[in-house]
């Protein structure tokens, strides 16, 4: 069994010229699993350093940058200058993986195009992460998170359930944060490790990842349904009953997919007369009467507290979950037990608990090396070493 201090990607060097969320997250994923991540930043620093939301306090400390770049090293290089390009090539000589999101048109002039990198570094895995990929008629299109969500399907399909019931005429609502871009990052990490698998045999290669493709891939269900002959829509795709339940002090999610879970729900509700109607023993009948069921279930939930509903529900095997706030997640005893968070120093904001990784290897959480790097700390370190 591997030493817990030796995470699975130990010994691997990843260089990234990432400017955006997708490419940066790809590097983060590899970094939390043990790879050494070198973030090459322009002289003014990554734009992500200036991207809100900012941590509370007097300084301008981006929570986004801190999360995405925790554990990375920062190397300052001006890639518009030949010295900067030479420095980057020096770093790449010792690297297995390059993750780059430079817009296509800007690549060749600074030697970051597929051909130049392939020629100089034939053993390097060159991962390109762009909103619409490096190939295809829309590869030059601009995107921000919200436009990506709408280019890849889920944007048009949310909200559903209670939210769309309450606000049927509002514009669709996006998933929080950077969901689609993060899918691009996850796909890029997958692509990097896929190419790594055959690197010894066939050398490096160019991996072309598009956040649109990645976000679409996780939205596969809608495409599947299209093949079945039905078009998903945010109104119609709501669960027939259950879903988001407003309680006296918050919200819970209820979802009973199996017969025994429905039977547990009837118990949880205290076996009311309406639920004992023999017709409702059949799952299709329940589906047909979803609106009526929901009226009863919501009335029942509205006077009860989340914690009471959840603990009583779990006792009778009814799938129920509290809608946790970020603060709830942070102090959740389960997550504390799992070691989901680790304290790291965030310059300008003190020591903060930061999410490490959703993976455990050999029963142990992964370590987080450090917080986000100071700008160019690696250059300073190199200067000090050479003295």
């Amino acid at each position: 069994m591997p030493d817990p201090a030796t995470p699975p990607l130990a010994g691997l060097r990843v260089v990234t010229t990432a400017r955006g969320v997708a490419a940066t997250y790809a590097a983060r994923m590899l970094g939390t699993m043990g790879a050494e991540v070198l973030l090459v930043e322009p002289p003014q620093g990554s734009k992500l350093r200036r991207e809100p939301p900012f941590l509370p306090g007097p300084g301008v400390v981006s929570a986004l940058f801190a999360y995405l770049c925790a554990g990375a090293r920062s190397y300052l290089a001006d890639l518009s200058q030949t010295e900067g390009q030479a420095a980057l090539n020096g770093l790449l000589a010792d690297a297995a993986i390059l993750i780059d999101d430079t817009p296509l048109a800007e690549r060749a002039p600074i030697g970051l195009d597929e051909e130049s990198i392939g020629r100089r570094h034939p053993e390097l895995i060159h991962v390109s992460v762009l909103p619409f990929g490096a190939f295809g008629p829309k590869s030059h299109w601009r995107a921000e998170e919200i436009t990506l969500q709408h280019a890849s399907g889920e944007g048009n399909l949310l909200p559903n359930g209670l939210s769309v019931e309450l606000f049927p005429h509002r514009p669709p609502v996006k998933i929080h944060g950077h969901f689609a871009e993060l899918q691009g990052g996850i796909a890029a990490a997958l692509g990097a490790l896929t190419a790594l698998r055959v690197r010894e045999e066939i050398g490096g290669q160019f991996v072309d990842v598009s956040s649109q493709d990645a976000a679409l891939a996780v939205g596969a269900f809608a495409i599947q349904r299209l093949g079945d002959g039905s078009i998903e829509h945010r109104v119609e795709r709501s669960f027939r009953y259950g879903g988001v339940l407003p309680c006296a002090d918050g919200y819970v999610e209820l979802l009973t997919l199996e017969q025994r879970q429905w039977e547990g729900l009837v118990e949880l509700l205290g076996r009311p007369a309406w639920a004992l109607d023999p017709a409702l023993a059949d799952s299709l009948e329940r589906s047909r009467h979803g609106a009526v069921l929901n009226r009863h279930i919501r009335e029942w939930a509205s006077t009860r507290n989340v914690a009471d509903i959840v603990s009583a529900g779990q006792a009778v095997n009814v799938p129920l979950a509290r809608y946790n706030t970020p603060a709830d997640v942070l102090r959740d005893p389960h997550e504390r037990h799992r070691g989901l968070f680790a304290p790291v120093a965030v310059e300008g904001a003190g020591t903060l608990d930061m999410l490490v990784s959703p993976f455990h290897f050999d029963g142990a959480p992964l370590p987080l090396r450090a917080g986000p790097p100071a700008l160019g700390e690696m250059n300073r370190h190199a200067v000090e070493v050479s003295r």
Partner: protein
Amino acid sequence: MKPLAGIRIADFTVHNAGPFCTHLLSQLGAEVIKIESAMRPDMFRKPHPVYGRMGPATFDQVASTKLSIRINLKKPEGAALSKRLVAVSHLAAESFRPGVMGRLGLGYEALRAVKSDLVMLSVSSSGQSGPDAHFAGYAPLFGAWGGLGEMTGYADGPPVEMRHVMDHTVGMNAAVAALAALHHHSATGEGCYVDVSARDVASSLLGEALLLAAAGSEPHRSGNAHPRMAPHGVYPAAGDDSWLAIAVSGDEQWRALAALIGCDDPRFDSEAGRKAHADQLDTIVARWTSTRDANAAAEALQAAGIAAHASWTTPEIAADPHLQARGAIVTVEESGGKERAAVGVPMRLSKGPEIGIHRGTPALGEDEDYVYGELLGMTRGERRALEEAEVIY
């Protein structure tokens, strides 16, 4: 070449998240052998009334490119047969509730006894350890526990249920972790046990909000608003239920948009000014978008250097030449000859053009001649006896 050629996966996963993981690995070249039983077919092979539909749910997509065999895991001989398969595999994947594999006699230690360098992957709602490890969960519950549901939605409305994208991102994350473990195996010769918690994957998608909470802030859902950009949102386009997403970053893009829509209000000159008057700005932008075709307007905005995209419905996505050119949307043929659109593996490899879906949904037990006959060297008689004993069943 297919990069994962030579990797064999004994696939015990069910439902959605786990099967999507092995589906991705199968498209990259791994030989994935899906284990089911007529006693207990994958729940997603069956009709699903709670979705208001009678056909199988996502099964066709995630079962593509896999091989299918029957093993009745409830029988001790079924566990023994499973071990024979694991012994010739590199990776075993499962997504039952924690503890189930152990009770079936197929826990990590039991499987390592037949394959000492096995990589084993478990995908579950809350992970294999911790007070909530036994919780049953589906995508909307992972999203709720993990905080993504609470943080998604209109600022004045309820939280929003995460649907299949939540399952599938868990699957894609799990595929990354599995490949990391396989890399570790290549480097050291050692197997390992990979435990992926779906609710923790949900949380990993809001790491910045969790960090804000750790620093004492109280982040709240904010609809389509962005903390910096304005205009930023989903605007009505011409036609019924037609929308256009626009995000304007920086003054240069704003000036381009302002010229396009004919707006010269000085309040909007700076990003801070635009953010402060975002509501009025939204009204002005919506007035311009509401008479325009969403796709045509998106092209005009892109030509002016502004991030914009029509809010695409599924048929629009399936028909898109760009996604088709990239292999992100492919056409697959079922065993009955019926064609349908499917989603490809989200990457293009310069030295691996062969990756992707190569066959549709396997029938239950379709590949037993290969797996039992060729791979495990079982005789007809041996197989027939196990069929009669309802082990291969």
